[in-house]
């Protein structure tokens, strides 16, 4: 990869923030990864997450019923099934979160391109390298559950896992290359006018910046209070519930066993919802901050930009609120969270289309 050569620099590129091939590749790749990851998350939540949780609970209950009979083989059989359900869920969550996170990094790298001190061709190749690995990683993670150990050269790790690890390592290398380019710029001491492109969209940009920062503060405080609550000893530890389950199952006390499973279900629900709320607050915060940078590039009227920004901010705040409302209101909370998620996706798609229009109208003369 010829990364050296005529290093690209200067205010011309900085003044046209989507003016180079590397920026276009990273911006469009990033937005597609984020929108794709979010859409996948919606589908996963509706069709896989909830039925899968129910199957895990049923298998564990069935395993507990075998304790009085001393059926050790049957118990291990049920836990093997639980392992499969957990892998199904875990790989979907990982595919969803990795696609979104890699998309975020792609957008940030696009914004940083004016300061990456490589030749134009080197930057374009490095951008394609990043996006290709960024697409390969979540797809490989998704396939782990389905490919399994078929034709695997390793006893416990399948081909999809090997590919996911490989793409992860290559992504790390792709980021390191960008780091190297920035380091070269930092050492050169060259100053760049950061340029602001076509301009406009001030209100939308401010709305997104303020919303994003507020969400991040909320996310940190939420995480800190949740951790403090766990440390305070007010939460019943998972291990205590499990010990109670096996004890009551052995003594065949079905009434207490039913209470234990209800407590275990509640414990799992509280943990999953609290973690998801914390994660989604932060992710929505970062997304809003990133979108604030794109506003001046959108060929829409100020009122249209503000409208899409309001939709993104409202969706960003409502999504974690909806997740949290799943505790007292169940499906109602899920519907709010899913609707908010779709609102953010709609806003993202509108901004992506705007960026594509901007690129088409300004791209002819670009390098």
């Amino acid at each position, binding site marked *: 990869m010829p990364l050296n050569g005529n290093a690209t620099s200067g205010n011309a590129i900085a003044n046209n923030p989507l003016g180079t091939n590397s920026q276009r590749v990273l911006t469009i790749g990033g937005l597609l990864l984020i929108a794709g990851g979010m859409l996948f998350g919606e589908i996963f939540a509706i069709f896989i997450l909830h039925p899968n949780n129910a199957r895990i609970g049923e298998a564990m209950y069935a395993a507990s019923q075998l304790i009085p009979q001393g059926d050790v083989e049957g118990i291990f059989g049920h836990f093997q099934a639980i392992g499969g359900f957990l892998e199904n869920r875990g790989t979907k969550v990982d595919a969803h979160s990795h696609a979104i996170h890699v998309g975020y990094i792609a957008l940030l790298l696009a914004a940083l391109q004016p300061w990456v001190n490589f030749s134009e061709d080197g930057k374009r190749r490095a951008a394609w390298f990043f996006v290709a690995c960024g697409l390969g990683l979540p797809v490989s993670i998704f396939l782990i559950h389905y490919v399994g150990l078929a034709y695997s050269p390793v006893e416990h790790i399948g081909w999809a896992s090997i590919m996911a690890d490989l793409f992860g390592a290559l992504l790390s290398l792709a980021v390191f290359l960008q780091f190297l380019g920035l380091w070269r710029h930092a050492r050169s001491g060259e100053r760049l006018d950061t340029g602001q492109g076509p301009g406009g969209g001030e209100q939308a940009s401010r709305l997104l*910046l*303020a919303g994003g920062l507020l969400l991040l503060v909320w996310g940190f405080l939420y995480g800190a209070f949740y951790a403090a609550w766990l440390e305070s000893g007010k939460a019943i530890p998972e291990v205590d519930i499990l010990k109670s389950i096996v004890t009551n199952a052995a003594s065949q006390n079905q009434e207490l066993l039913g209470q234990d499973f209800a407590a275990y279900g509640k414990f799992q629900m509280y943990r999953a919802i609290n973690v998801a709320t914390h994660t989604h607050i932060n992710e929505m915060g970062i997304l809003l901050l990133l979108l604030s940078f794109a506003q001046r590039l959108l060929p829409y009227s100020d009122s249209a930009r503000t409208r899409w920004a309001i939709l993104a901010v409202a969706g960003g705040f409502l999504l974690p609120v909806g997740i949290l409302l799943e505790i007292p209101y169940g499906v109602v909370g899920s519907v709010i969270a899913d609707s908010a998620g779709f609102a953010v996706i709609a806003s993202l798609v509108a901004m992506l289309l705007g960026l594509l229009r901007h690129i088409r109208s300004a791209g002819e003369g670009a390098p």
Partner: protein
Amino acid sequence: MTTPQRMLILTGLFLIAFTMAFGVWYAVFDEHQTLVGMGVQMATGFAEMAAGEPGASSEALENYAALSQEYRREVHAHGHWGMLSLVLIIIGLAFNRLALSERHGLLLAWLLALSATLFPLGVLMQIGPAAGLGKLLTVPASLGMVVGLLVSAWALIRNPQRAAD
């Protein structure tokens, strides 16, 4: 690019590359083994009770709880390094919109860069023998992030003209 911007962006990129490398190492050498261990210990907890060994059952379930805690901390450290590195880069890119003096800007950049690096490290350290030190580290580091974000928001609001650039 100013010194605080350079500090935030380079720290952010370094943390992304580092956490990705950590994630790959973790996935290959530790995650799979930890997950299998968790499943085996929980199943053993049930099986030992079925075999009439409540002591062994309790021990297996305690092992499951310890592994589960370890797994969550490792995943949290990886995830938090990734998220915080993005926050550093974004604030670095928007730094010229903040109404801060050069000295205050530099202090803010140091605060955010150190907090983002040390908070996940504190989470990770809670697994090993330095668990107490890890806990001690996470409190000021998370506080540093909250203060840093609030100062950033305040500096942005204080300067509405530049924020709109």
